[in-house]
């Protein structure tokens, strides 16, 4: 589904990703772990199409299509979804209007008519239950005045509404208490199918107790330095990230 080959990315001349490669197939959950400043969030932003990143080398193919030249909305319409580490507050735009616009723009790109109001409301009710959102949420402005936990739940709620093929969760666990973490993880687990895939970016092993990954990658200094099964996450938790730094220069498998 996703093939990243030898990706090099700079921000204002500073090299962040230095030969990052990754293959993700449908049905898989990949975890990417690593210390601060190794380029995990840059990877997420580049995949989603955020401006301000200079891609100096490498390719990113999504379902056989080079997506690096596409606008963020075009990638989203193809089925790439980024759950933001810091969801943006948008005063004055209600969640309902926002989601309706998103759902309809994606439908339009597939040649479908706008969703019927009743179907939209039904869909919202269903998906809200998934992440235990309160009812008043829908009329509130996007993320405005939301607690950290509510913002992250809102990301997963949007994920449920838009039903992407590939979801990138960028430190969705940061700032969550254990209850919110459980809600978010349950949401993701219910949305998991054999046709979609997840990349879970996280610092801590904690989230991976709830969302069990097929493959764990350790990232350091702009590339993957080690990959393994879920036990690698436990090993990292035990040994700490200093251990990872020693792994640098070891080729990834």
């Amino acid at each position, binding site marked *: 589904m996703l093939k990243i080959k030898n990706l090099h990315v700079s921000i204002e001349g500073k090299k962040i990703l230095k030969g990052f490669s990754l293959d993700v197939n449908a049905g898989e959950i990949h975890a990417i772990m690593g210390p601060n400043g190794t380029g995990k969030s840059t990877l997420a932003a580049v995949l989603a199409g*955020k*401006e301000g990143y200079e891609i100096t080398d490498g390719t990113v193919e999504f379902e056989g299509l080079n997506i690096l030249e596409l606008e963020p*909305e075009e990638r989203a319409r193809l089925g790439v979804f980024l759950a933001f580490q810091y969801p943006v507050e948008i005063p004055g*735009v209600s969640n309902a209007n*926002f989601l309706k*616009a*998103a759902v309809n723009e994606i439908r339009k790109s597939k040649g479908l008519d706008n969703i019927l109001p009743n179907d939209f409301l039904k869909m919202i009710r269903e998906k809200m239950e998934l992440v235990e959102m309160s009812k008043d949420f829908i009329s509130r402005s996007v993320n405005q005045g939301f607690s950290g936990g509510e913002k992250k739940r809102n990301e997963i709620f949007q994920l449920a509404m838009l039903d992407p093929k590939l979801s990138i969760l960028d430190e969705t666990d940061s700032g969550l208490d254990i209850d919110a973490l459980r809600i978010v993880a349950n949401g993701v687990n219910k949305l998991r199918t054999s046709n979609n895939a997840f990349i879970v970016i996280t610092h801590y092993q904690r989230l991976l107790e709830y969302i069990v990954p097929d493959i764990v990658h350790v990232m350091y200094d702009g590339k993957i330095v080690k990959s393994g099964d879920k036990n690698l996450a436990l090993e990292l938790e035990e040994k700490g990230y200093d251990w990872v730094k020693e792994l640098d220069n070891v080729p990834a498998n």
Partner: protein
Amino acid sequence: MNIDTLKEYTPKVIESTRQNSLMQAIALGIPSMKNEEWKYTYYNKILQQGFAPTYTPATVNIKKDFIDKHSVSGNNIVFLNGIYQPELSSLKPSAGVVFTNTANTSEQISNDFLIELNNAFATDGLYLEISDNVILTDLIEVLYIQSNTSGIIQHRNKIKIGKHAQVSLAEYYISYDNLPVYVNNVTHIEIDERAIFDSYKIQDGGEVFYITEQTFVQQAKNSTATVNTFSLSGAITRNVLQFDSQDERTLSNMNGLYLLKKNEHVDNRTLVNHNAPNCESNELYKGIIDGNAVGVFNGKIRVAQEAQKTNAFQSNRNILLSEDAAIYTKPQLEIFADDVKCSHGATIAQIEESELFYLQARGIGKDVARGLLVYAFAGELLEKIKHEALKLSLKKRIADLLNIEI
């Protein structure tokens, strides 16, 4: 039109007061950009379109369903090319409401060219008197419909609101055929003690519609007046809005939204004269400026020495959507009292990139995303509309202008 054109009218003018006004207009001359009040608005550009004063504006036949399309309350007074149209109007009769059509020209001579031009040539206008204690729930709508005329269309309006009365009025500037037209309106409003008056001005006549209008509001003790100005389309629009607070505890609210594109130009000039103690004024103008459009905002607050305990707040916030869009914004506070709370602020910003990216990342195209964000920015002013049907109609219109669905 130029000053020589005006001189040709002098022999034809019969009434002496009109004659005096005409002479004064000629003496004052056409406003130039050297005049501080006209620094950013080139008045001659309007006249260069070929508009000239007239006592006999052209008439056209307009169907009733055109009126219905533009009226949200069905309680309306229709002017066509400056002349009242009783057969098209449908003002519901109501006790304590007097409406007549008449040019409410003034014998007082001013120092304003446009007031004197209006004084000399206004052919018709709205006279509305609301008796004491009358509370009207129906919105009164005034439709200024223009159609294919090179005549300068001038309404001269006078509105009197009695003690404890409550009334809402909406004025619409409408084009029938999208041909160039110019309207120069002057309105005087007197609001008596404890009365509440809400006014909505909807300027949406299209890209070749020119407006200069001046509204003067006098407020007696404990009265509340709110004027909401929505400038949604128009070639050149210049709005002068003046509040005079003459006695204690008046509340004056001025809200404005201007949505400019292409080569449109809107100049909003407001003046609040606080002449008595314990009064309050609130002003919020927001602008969204795209293309090569230009916005001008000049907000002046004068607090006289005896107007202690005045609270006066002013804010002008702008979003520029293009490199070539411009806004000239200037607050002016003249405060002679020492125990007052006054504040003003002006901001000029662009669309927040992080917000735009967030929306795009959910599949929303850049244009629609921008539209949603601009709509949100305008929302604060739309929410101030107290009349639900009018609010809904303006929300739809603004969403249409921004190419979004709400």
